C-alpha cells in the first residue's frame, strides 16, 4: 500500500538499488578553462521497489532521462559517456564492465519519448525482440505477440491487420505498439521516457490507465514533465534538479508536503 512507503528512499522490496551514481558526458569542443566533461548526475542514491511506479520529475536537463538510461545501460551508446557508482538489479551489479548488457536490456525494457515503430508489419514489430533472442517457433511467436498486444491494450484494434505496416498506426497506437514490443520479451522492469509527450490527451489517458494495470506485473520507472501525470500514475516520485536527486518520497508526500523548498518551488510552478 502507498501508506507503507513513508520512508521514501527505499521501496517495499528493492528491485533496483542505485548508490553514489555519477554520470559524465564528454564535452565535444571544450572552451578554454572549461572541463572536458559535463557531470549530468551527481552522487544519486535511489531505490526502485518491486511492482511500483516511480515517477522522475524535474526541469529539462536535470538528469532524469540520464538516470533512466543508466538503468538499462543505454548510456553505453553515447560516445564519451562515463558512469561511476553502483547500480544493482536484484542484488547484481549491472555497471560491471563484463556484465551481459544484452541480457540486462531484456530484463529491463524501455519505451521512448517518440513512438518508434519499425518499418515492418505490426506482428513483426512485436515479435522483433523475441526473434532477436532466438525464438523462431511460429505458434509460440503468435501466442506471445497476441499476449503482448493484449497486455498493451492494442489487440482489439489491430487483430485484423497484423500484417499492416506499423508505421500506419496513430501516435497513441504506435506508443502502445512500442510497449507491446517491450512487454513481449517479458521484462521485469519497464523504463518509460516521457512516453506521452507526443500523444494527444485521449491517448495519454489510455496509456496512463495501461501503466496502472501493468504495475501489477512489473516495476515501472517513468520520466514525466507533467506533474499531474506523476500524481496520477506513480506511487513514489523523485525530484531531480541540476543532476542531483533533491527529494524522493511517496507521491502524495512530495506533492502535498515536500521537505525541500526547491521541490515546492518546482511543483508550485515557480520554475522549470
Amino acid at each position, binding site marked *: 500500500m502507498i501508506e507503507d512507503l513513508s520512508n521514501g528512499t527505499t521501496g517495499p522490496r528493492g528491485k533496483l538499488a542505485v548508490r553514489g551514481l555519477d554520470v559524465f558526458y564528454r564535452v565535444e569542443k571544450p572552451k578554454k578553462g572549461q572541463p572536458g566533461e559535463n557531470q549530468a548526475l551527481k552522487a544519486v542514491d535511489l531505490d526502485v521497489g518491486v511492482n511500483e511506479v516511480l515517477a522522475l520529475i524535474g526541469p529539462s536537463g536535470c538528469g532524469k532521462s540520464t538516470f533512466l538510461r543508466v538503468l*538499462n545501460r*543505454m548510456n553505453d*551508446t553515447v*560516445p564519451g559517456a562515463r558512469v561511476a557508482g553502483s547500480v544493482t538489479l536484484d542484488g547484481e551489479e549491472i555497471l560491471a564492465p563484463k556484465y551481459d548488457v*544484452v*541480457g*540486462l*536490456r*531484456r530484463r529491463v*525494457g*524501455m519505451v*521512448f519519448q*517518440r513512438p*518508434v515503430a*519499425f*518499418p*515492418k508489419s505490426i506482428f513483426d514489430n512485436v515479435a*522483433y*525482440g523475441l*526473434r*532477436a*533472442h532466438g525464438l523462431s517457433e511460429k505458434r509460440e511467436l503468435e501466442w506471445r505477440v497476441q499476449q503482448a498486444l493484449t497486455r498493451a491494450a492494442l489487440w482489439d484494434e489491430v487483430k485484423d491487420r497484423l500484417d499492416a*505496416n506499423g*508505421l*500506419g498506426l496513430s501516435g497513441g497506437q504506435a506508443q502502445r505498439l*512500442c510497449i507491446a*514490443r*517491450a512487454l513481449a*520479451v517479458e521484462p521485469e522492469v519497464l523504463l518509460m521516457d516521457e512516453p506521452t509527450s507526443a500523444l494527444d490527451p485521449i491517448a495519454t489517458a489510455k496509456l496512463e490507465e495501461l501503466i496502472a494495470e501493468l504495475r501489477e506485473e512489473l516495476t515501472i520507472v517513468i520520466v514525466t514533465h507533467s506533474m499531474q501525470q506523476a500524481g496520477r500514475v506513480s506511487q513514489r516520485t523523485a525530484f531531480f534538479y541540476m543532476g542531483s536527486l533533491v527529494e524522493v518520497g511517496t507521491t502524495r508526500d512530495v506533492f502535498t508536503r515536500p521537505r525541500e523548498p526547491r521541490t515546492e518551488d518546482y511543483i508550485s510552478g515557480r520554475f522549470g
Partner: protein
Amino acid sequence: MSTVTQLEATPVARKAGRAASFRRKSPAWHGLAEWGIRATALLAIAAIVLIFVFILKEALPILFDTHVRGEVSLMKMWLPQAWDGGPARFSWQPASEVPKYSLMPLVAGSLKVTLIALVISAPIAILAAVYTASIAPRRVREVLKPVVELLAGVPSVVLGVFALIVAGTWLQKLFGFEHRLNAVLAGCALSVTIVPLIFTIAEDAITAVPRDYVDASLALGATKMHTILRVVVPAAVPGIAAGIVLGFGRAIGETMIVVIASGNAALLDATLGHSTRTITATIAQEMGETVHGSPHYVVLFVLGATLLAFTFVTNLGAQRIVEHFRKKRGGT
C-alpha cells in the same frame, strides 16, 4: 521587455507613415535573378530533350530512307537472319561484303559486362557502406569515406590500361580464360568505377536511418549485429537499390574501359571468358569510319537510341522501386 516595446510601437510607426521603409519593394535585380535561374533550369531540360531529338533524328532514316532500308531494317537488326544460305543467326559484321547489322551480340555483350561489374561491385560497395556507416569508429569513418570516393576520380582510361597490361594476364592465369581480353576482365575494371558510386549512395542511405530505430532495437536486447541486419539495412533498402540502379546506368554507359579491356569481338554466347563487344565500344570505334548518312552511320545511331532507352527504362524502374518501398514503409 524590448520586444513588448517594439510590438507596441509598430502601429504608431505605421500611423506615422514610416511603415514604407519596412515594406520596400524587392529590388529589380531580384526579378532578373529569378529569371536567370529559371532560364538555367530550362536550359538543362532543353539539353536533355535536344540530345533525344538529335539521336532520334539521325536514327530515323532506318524507318524511312530507301537507300538505308535496302541494306538494313529494324527487323533485320533484332531478328536472326540467314546470310549466304546458312542457318539463321545473329551477326554483327558491318564492314563485310554483305554488311550484317544484328544488334543482339552487342546488347548481350553490354549486359554481360554490366552484370558482371554489378555482381562484383554491389556486394563490396554495400558491405563497405554498412561497415562505414554503422560499425566503424568515427575516426575510421572520416578517413574511409573520402578515400573510397576518391576512387571515383581515377580516370577510366587508367583503369582500362591497367586491365589491358596487368590484370588481363592475372585473370587468364587464375581462371584459364580462352581469350586474354574478355567480359570478366572488362567487368572487373568497370566494377572499380561503380563501387564508389554505389558505396556513396548506400552509405548516405544507411546513415539517414533514424538513430531512434537503433536505440529502440538495442533497448529490446537485440545485439548490434542483429540491429544492423534487421533494422538498419532493411530501412535503407530503397537508397541501396537506387545506388545499384545508378551503378547499372553508369556501367552500361561506360566506354573507355570496355574499348580497351573487353576484346571487342562481337560474339553472341554465354561464356564469360570470351571476348565481348559492347554497344558503347562499337559506337566509339566505328563512328569515325562511317560515311555520314550511310546505313552503317544510321545503325550506330539506332544503337545509341537503344542504349538511351535502356538507361531511361532502368532509371524509371528504379524510381518505381524506391516509390514502392516508400509506400510500403508508409513514410513520405
